């Protein structure tokens, strides 16, 4: 009614309209009491508690997966390779194409200030380039996601992959691995003042890992009974830890090292739950190159290069260098 009888109409139509309009009371705009709004808790996209973790694929049995091909005696000098060998082909190409990560801080990550990819894995690649060319800069880095690693090797897009890649029997069906160049283990990252000492103290608490990772499965299967929470990316876990939405993050200590480096108020605690031996991956059929790289790795273990790399990238976060992982061979 009020919209029908606007102010102009009321004035013009005089008494009749005034009487009619008087019937409609003034409209009531009393302000309701303010209710406290619910606090907004933003979450990373895709974050959520996992109720069911898919069963692990049964691993084919291949004996000891970490046993690799024994190097020939003495590593050849840079540039002097038998013609027809994989090394000679790479030297002829002029650069070593390496599949790497750009998201694992301290192992393979892009420095936002310089835009360059750096880290432990990257320096491993440079050491191999040094042995091939006598020039550690003859490396072309190619960023790969976890899922892209094996296809990139199979399609010949990269010569090798150095990307926090765990050696296991399933992968050995598709690619070859070097000897173990880094022995990682799944551990737990918590806030420094939280009082948690490891997975055992996290029963009923939320623990974060990425979707589809073996770490997530290990959390779900832990006898302590933590609540697994999944996210898309490891840094999303740290966001949730900082926002008090999870109590801990659990995965390879290499990844945890990268996370604790970005938040000094966190620490890595507890004993390794699970061993994760990292190897350099090769396409099938390049046995000469595998043996050559194993020779380079042997030399790095014994001449202190491995320890220097560990000290440069990892020691500040995970403590002083252990012994380099020992090489196991199957001839």
């Amino acid at each position, binding site marked *: 009614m009020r919209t029908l009888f*606007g102010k102009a109409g009321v004035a013009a139509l005089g008494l009749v309209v005034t009487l009619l309009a008087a019937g409609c009371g003034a409209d009531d705009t009393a302000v309701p009491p303010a209710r406290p709004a619910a606090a907004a808790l*933003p979450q990373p996209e895709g974050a959520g508690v996992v109720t069911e973790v898919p069963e692990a694929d049964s691993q084919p049995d291949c004996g000891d997966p970490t046993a690799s091909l024994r190097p020939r005696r003495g590593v050849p000098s840079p540039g002097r390779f038998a013609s027809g060998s994989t090394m000679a082909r790479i030297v002829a190409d002029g650069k070593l194409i390496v599949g790497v*990560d750009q998201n694992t801080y301290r192992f393979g990550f892009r420095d936002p200030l310089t835009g360059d990819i750096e880290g432990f894995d990257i320096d491993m690649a440079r050491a191999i380039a040094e042995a091939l060319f006598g020039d550690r800069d003859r490396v072309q880095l190619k960023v790969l996601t976890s899922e892209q690693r094996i296809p990139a090797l199979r399609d010949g897009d990269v010569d090798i992959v150095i990307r926090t890649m765990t050696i296991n029997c399933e992968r050995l069906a598709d690619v070859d691995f070097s000897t173990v160049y880094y022995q990682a283990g799944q551990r737990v990252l918590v806030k420094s003042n939280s009082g948690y000492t490891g997975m055992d103290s996290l029963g009923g608490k939320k623990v974060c890992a990425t979707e589809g990772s073996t770490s997530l499965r290990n959390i779900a299967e832990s006898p302590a009974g933590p609540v697994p929470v999944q996210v898309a990316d490891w840094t999303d876990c740290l*966001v949730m830890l900082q926002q008090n939405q999870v109590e801990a993050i659990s995965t390879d200590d290499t990844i945890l090292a990268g996370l604790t480096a970005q938040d000094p108020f966190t620490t890595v605690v507890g004993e390794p739950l699970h061993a994760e031996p990292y190897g350099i991956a090769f396409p099938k059929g390049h046995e000469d190159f595998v043996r050559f790289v194993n020779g380079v790795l042997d030399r790095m273990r014994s001449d202190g290069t491995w320890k220097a790399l560990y000290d440069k990238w990892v020691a500040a976060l995970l403590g002083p260098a252990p012994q380099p992982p020992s090489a196991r061979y199957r001839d």
Partner: protein
Amino acid sequence: MLTLLIIGLVLAAVVAGLGTALSVQRRAQALDELATSSGPLSAAAQQIYRSLSSADATATSAFLSGGREPSELRESYLTDIAAAQSALAVAVAAREPADVTAPDSPLATLSGQISVYTGLVDTARAVNQQGLPLGAAYQREASYLMRSQLLPAAEALYRAETGNVGAGQDRASGFPFLELAFGVLALAALVAAQLYLRRRTRRVFNLGLLAATLAALVSLVWVLVASTAASADVGRSRDNGSTQSDVLARARIAALTARADETLTLVARGSGDDFEKHYQDTSGHLGGAEGGLLAEARALATTSEVREHVDEAIAQRRNWSAAHEDIRQADSGGDYRAAVDITIGSGEAATSFAAVDSALAAAIDNTTASFDDEIGQARNALTGAVAAVVVLAVIMAASAVLGLWQRLKEYR
């Protein structure tokens, strides 16, 4: 018998005058609302929606620049947030308080979450400036909040407010059936009265009733002419204004969303496939010369200025698509830095996107001005119509009474 006739005629005049005045008043009221309430509110809602989309695109571009963040980008982000918040204040002020406090209402979401969003963006920025990859995770979380909550709320508000404009246009532009009916009723009563008098008195004309008939006729013609003119103006406010504004605004928001996708793909560093997919979807929606929102806007354009702006947007859109291909090629080829260089600063993608945005903004300014102009003309057309109808109704009643009173005296 004559007394009854007098009473009947006065009643007819009053009913016809009142009814006509109310109908005209209703139309004028709808026009007032379009000019002073639903029109500005729909513009405010559009500003919230656009500013937030723009803030998302700008924040991700600034993030990509990292330590080299140009001051213009920061300023433009802060301007977007300020614009969204001031438009939100306008939208909130126009509503009942209950609309704002109801949980999950668009206004509650917007007023509660914008500050959470800016907090996340600033955290991302601070962490990124220390050179830590964690910054990208905060930036992605901020964009996710924007896309999953803020933008849907802004879109719902925008839809509701544009819906109000459409309803207002409907109310203000109908054919004046009621007015016609009332006018005809008054005329019929007067003619009938005169025929009756003529039979009873053998006098052909009664001056009073003639004057009343003339007043009724003038009133009817006035109302019909004014209402039809106003209706036509409102129709033009739709064709030249609001319909085009809506398509252009949606095109502009699609461009901003695609731009945010483009930069987020690089922010996500190697795991941005979902953003690239979303870019392709949004991009298809935006379209170009052949289809999508841009082609729709081109087809709807009614002035050469708007058409030129849309053509410019289509041409720049083509450059932008080509630049986007270059970005994807560089990024998937491992040359991340080259990809970033094309994307931000004076890179081809950044400049051609900016040109698309400003061409669409100019076109929207144009169509919004047309809308305001046509609504203003419609209001002018109705100016005085209500007063005239009332005065003429009074004249009609008075002359009818006078004319019949004279007759009555003669017969006593």
